[in-house]
């Protein structure tokens, strides 16, 4: 393993430098800079996660991707807490994907999805910090000839109180790097944390206000060519013929590349490539899907709900009997549409094919998956791929599992005929990005509930027809026709109802689907929490009281609901014309509740006044970043609920840019109050997605309060609202 080689060379380095430097006397006699020179200026790797420079700078390696959520800072905070270094000396760098392959995946998962960065790596990172601290202390103790247990480390300084000696991490890092890592390290009790739980400035922000931040789309290399691409507008279609005579004559055009399902123009800049692309006359073999429409997809889902043979994903008690004996039976159908992620940075990737090797630059939520895709496209081993992970101009799931942009860039670059190998940057136009997404699945819900004479819920039957994301990416996760990933919020519903049943009909139209921020938890809560509101309203019950009666004591859903209700002043009457709604949903280890206040004008226009979101993520590492994630989920969730809709006609996506796939802008933005109520315990929850889950239902419940109109299909823009 290369890991061993690195260690060996470091040992060699230590011997050399000790011989030259002459040991500790010099260490204390010289000023910092000279000390660094005496010991060598190379940074020392003290565990794979931590580099310590002779001048005391600490670099923490980050395996997950930064896409605005703050992991590039939050993850190093976890390390630094246990390392006991000076936070002001800490910076971050991405763990090298190439080294990850060479060193047997020493940094673990590089996947950045499922709100997982902190919740799935906090332990390994805190342990890395504690391990390195122990190694640094041991190195100092060995230098001094004292027991390590008598030494302490604080703010990057190691002290041996009895002999009144102290040294710094930078001075002992070279020796520490040669030591065997201790097997077991003790982590701090959370009550002793000094850094975790304090708001720290994000490392990535300064470059993002000056234009210096280089995203994937900004990669600039010598002799680089640019490509724009047109894929068959009907998914799974193929290129039949291409007339490129007009495009070829355009200035700057170098080559027209034909792929199985796409055509690309390669030129000396992107605008020229894209202008020429518009001149291509492509005949497509659109295949069997060219007749599919939103209506036919709806009919397919509807057939699914009407199919009595679909499997049960959950069955408690006897729903049929309970419904038959209920004093009141309620039934409603809900619908959520396909959604595109619309990252602000369109899909892009730069590839430089050099014989049987390829160098790739891409914004990705999962560098290892990107490498695998590039290797597969080129038909080489992953070790032949040198990968450069770039910061993302938005991810939201689009750049997580699916790396179609990497595949296409590699395939285009491979075909470029130049006298020497050159890098090619493939950038999708916004239109291509909207039309060639992988989408949040559509879903159709049939909700049926039975209530007794007192308005208590006795039965709840949920039937869900939807495409499965797992069927595409991990088909073995679909068992007995059930993708439980599509059923979050139903199969684990926190409400106590004696008779519950969840049925699932897997229907897979040709439209590609993937993870979209909060995944099923972005849509299932809309049906669940609005239908619950229907039950409360039809019985004249307060929605908070109604939920409280259904939630078990101690359930954190109850805690966040109370926190949101309290912060929003739920029990205090609102001004005339202002109305509110509430919703609750847990996901990714966190619990979230939202209260939305709004008014609806005589013309049916919604004026969003205020959004309160309370979240219990267990622990909060960087509170200001956590609040930013809540604010972010509010915008992403409101945008989807108000406007988000991808429709299909003749097998293709109808929308093409922000004028027909609109976004919430600042002029419609309500006030946001982010309420963090971390309760600790053994579970660490995520923050990138959970706050989004209650947004759509809270909004639609508020609209009902304002108008008496029950929104059962999204987006809201398709409904004509009227004031009560």
């Amino acid at each position, binding site marked *: 393993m290369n890991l061993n080689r690195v260690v060996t060379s470091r040992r060699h380095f230590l011997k050399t430098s000790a011989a030259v430097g002459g040991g500790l006397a010099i260490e204390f006699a010289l000023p910092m800079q000279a000390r660094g020179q005496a010991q060598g200026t190379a940074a020392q790797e003290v565990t794979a996660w931590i580099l310590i420079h002779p001048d005391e700078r600490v670099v923490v390696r980050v395996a997950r991707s930064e896409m605005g959520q703050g992991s590039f800072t939050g993850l190093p905070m976890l390390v630094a807490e246990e390392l006991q270094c000076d936070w002001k000396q800490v910076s971050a760098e991405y763990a090298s994907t190439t080294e990850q392959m060479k060193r047997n995946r020493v940094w673990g998962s590089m996947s950045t999805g499922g709100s997982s960065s902190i919740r799935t790596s906090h332990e390994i990172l805190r342990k890395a910090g504690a391990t390195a601290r122990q190694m640094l202390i041991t190195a100092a103790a060995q230098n001094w000839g004292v027991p390590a247990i008598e030494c302490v480390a604080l703010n990057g300084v190691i002290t041996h109180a009895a002999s009144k000696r102290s040294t710094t991490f930078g001075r002992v890092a070279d020796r520490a790097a040669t030591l065997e890592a201790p097997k077991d390290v003790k982590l701090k009790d959370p009550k002793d944390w000094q850094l975790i739980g304090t708001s720290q400035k994000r490392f990535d922000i300064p470059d993002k206000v000056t234009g210096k931040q280089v995203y994937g789309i900004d990669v600039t290399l010598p002799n680089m060519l640019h490509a724009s691409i047109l894929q068959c507008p009907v998914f799974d279609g193929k290129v039949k013929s291409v007339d490129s005579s007009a495009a070829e004559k355009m200035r700057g055009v170098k080559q027209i590349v034909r792929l199985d399902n796409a055509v690309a123009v390669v030129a000396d800049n992107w605008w020229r490539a894209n202008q020429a692309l518009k001149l291509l006359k492509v005949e497509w073999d659109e295949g069997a899907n060219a007749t599919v429409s939103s209506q036919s997809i709806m009919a397919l889902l509807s057939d699914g709900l009407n199919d009595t043979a679909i499997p049960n994903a959950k069955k408690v008690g006897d729903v049929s009997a309970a419904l038959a004996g209920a004093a009141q039976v309620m039934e409603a159908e809900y619908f959520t549409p396909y959604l595109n992620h619309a990252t602000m940075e369109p899909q892009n990737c730069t590839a430089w094919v050099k014989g049987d090797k390829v160098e790739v630059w891409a914004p990705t939520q999962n560098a290892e998956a990107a490498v695998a895709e590039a290797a597969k496209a080129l038909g080489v081993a992953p070790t032949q791929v040198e990968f450069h992970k770039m910061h993302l*101009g938005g991810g939201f799931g689009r750049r997580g599992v699916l790396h179609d942009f990497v595949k296409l860039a590699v395939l285009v670059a491979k075909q470029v005929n130049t006298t020497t190998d050159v890098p090619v940057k493939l950038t999708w136009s916004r239109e291509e990005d909207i039309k060639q997404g992988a989408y949040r699945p559509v879903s159709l819900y049939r909700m049926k509930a039975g209530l007794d004479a007192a308005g208590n819920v006795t039965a709840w039957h949920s039937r869900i027809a939807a495409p499965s994301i797992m069927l595409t990416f991990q088909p073995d996760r679909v068992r007995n026709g059930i993708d439980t990933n599509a059923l979050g919020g139903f199969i684990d519903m926190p409400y106590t109802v004696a008779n519950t049943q969840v049925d699932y009909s897997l229907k897979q139209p040709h439209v590609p689907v993937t993870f979209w921020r909060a995944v099923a938890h972005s849509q299932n809560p809309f049906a669940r929490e609005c239908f619950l509101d229907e039950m409360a309203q039809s019985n004249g019950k307060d929605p908070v009281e109604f939920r409280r009666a259904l939630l078990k004591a101690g359930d954190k859903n109850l805690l966040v609901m109370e926190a949101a209700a309290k912060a929003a002043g739920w029990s205090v009457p609102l001004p005339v014309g202002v109305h509110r709604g509430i919703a609750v949903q847990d996901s990714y280890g966190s619990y979230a509740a939202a209260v939305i206040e709004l008014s609806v004008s005589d013309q049916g226009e919604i004026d969003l006044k205020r959004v309160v979101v309370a979240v219990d993520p267990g622990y909060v590492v960087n509170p200001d970043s956590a609040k930013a994630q809540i*604010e972010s989920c509010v915008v992403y969730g409101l945008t989807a609920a108000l406007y988000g809709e991808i429709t299909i006609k003749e097998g293709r996506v109808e929308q093409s840019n922000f004028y027909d796939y609109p976004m919430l802008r*600042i002029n419609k933005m309500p006030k946001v109050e982010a309420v963090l109520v971390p309760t600790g315990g053994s579970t660490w929850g995520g923050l990138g997605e959970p706050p989004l889950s209650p947004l759509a239902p809270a909004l639609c419940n508020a609209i009902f309060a304002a108008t008496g109109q029950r929104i059962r299909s999204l987006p809201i823009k398709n409904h004509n609202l009227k004031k009560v």
Partner: protein
Amino acid sequence: MVKLNINGKVHQVDVEPDMPLLWVLRDILKMTGTKYGCGVAQCGACTVHVNGEAMRSCSVPASVLEGKKITTIEGLAATKLHKVQQAWIDHEVPQCGYCQSGMIMAAVNLLEKKPKPTDADIDAAMSNICRCGTYVRVRAAIHAAAKA
């Protein structure tokens, strides 16, 4: 040849009359701080200043800008951060940051015209799209910069 005055420096570029300023900046001059978001003046990621006016560079041919003063995010603050950039740092505004060059250019232009903008002024001037949802902080940072 098109002669452009960008951030106080004159550049001569050999481009077609209809090539938008955005692509001259990004692909010819390698000034990538100005971003491509939609290409149709919808999102504002490409916002620059032309003679003191915020303009969406994806939809303005470079050839019509001869003799005009163009400022990009790179030229906003040569030595010291602009007070808007400082407010952006103080309020931790950016998330992914991709839209923020345009956001900042629009905010600077707003403050040049209205040094003490109201919320309504901000609503009218800041039509840039941000998918990460930084709007709450954009508003707070503009108000803070107005006081700075």
